């Protein structure tokens, strides 16, 4: 079954001038809130959770982060994407306190029911583990990134 509407064209960011991790998380979450995907409590929940359970991951191609919250803060599932020009320091998922990773791709996840989105989450991880696909995506413009991600997540 194809995964529809996983991404939103207006929730793909690759030209933000923000350099601060929390400010970026706040910005992305606010845009998701404005589009009705998440509740007003989502932004704070994501930022707080990132402090306790960081989500940075070093994959073959880039540092990736998958910030998200508990499902109670979500109205409708979506993945917002931000590709930053200058990589941002995140802490490593499940790592020691001092373990850091320079993150180029932020996939902010709004998940209402993980059981419903098993395929989507599983496929997202297959994409960000794929060096070739990630190298390709990073060079594209906003619209093309959206098309490409949708294509990859549905195949």
């Amino acid at each position: 079954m194809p995964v529809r509407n996983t991404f939103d064209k207006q929730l793909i960011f690759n030209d933000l001038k923000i350099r601060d991790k929390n400010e970026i998380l706040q910005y992305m979450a606010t845009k998701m809130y404005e589009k009705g995907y998440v509740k007003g409590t989502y932004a704070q929940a994501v930022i707080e959770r990132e402090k306790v359970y960081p989500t940075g991951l070093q994959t073959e191609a880039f540092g990736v982060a998958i910030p998200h919250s508990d499902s109670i803060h979500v109205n409708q599932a979506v993945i917002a994407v931000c590709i930053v020009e200058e990589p941002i320091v995140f802490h490593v998922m499940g790592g020691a306190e001092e373990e850091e990773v320079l993150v180029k791709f932020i996939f902010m996840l709004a998940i209402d029911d993980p059981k419903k989105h098993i395929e989507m989450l599983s496929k997202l991880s297959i994409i960000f583990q794929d060096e070739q696909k990630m190298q390709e995506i990073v060079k594209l413009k906003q619209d093309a990134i959206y098309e490409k991600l949708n294509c990859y997540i549905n195949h």
Partner: protein
Amino acid sequence: MMKKKALVACGCGVASSTIVAKKLEDYCGERDIKLEWRICKAAEIPSLADMMKPDVIISITAVADLGNQIPVFDGKPFLTGIGVAKRLEEIYQAILK
């Protein structure tokens, strides 16, 4: 088909644990093992392990020794893709025991 159980944990029991569980389910399925899994928050591991009696526990965050003989694995390779083949096989071998 043999049935086995896995408990998969991450920080809030939403995203990472789901990714890990699905990959492990597929790997086991290809080897004729029906894997039943449950995702949970890391903090819920001790109580759920008692209740569910899983054959294996996979966690993204560090887990204290439960003292109950259930093998515990770090699930991070499933997310980074680095060393995932080796980790899958290790878990599979632990499940078979």
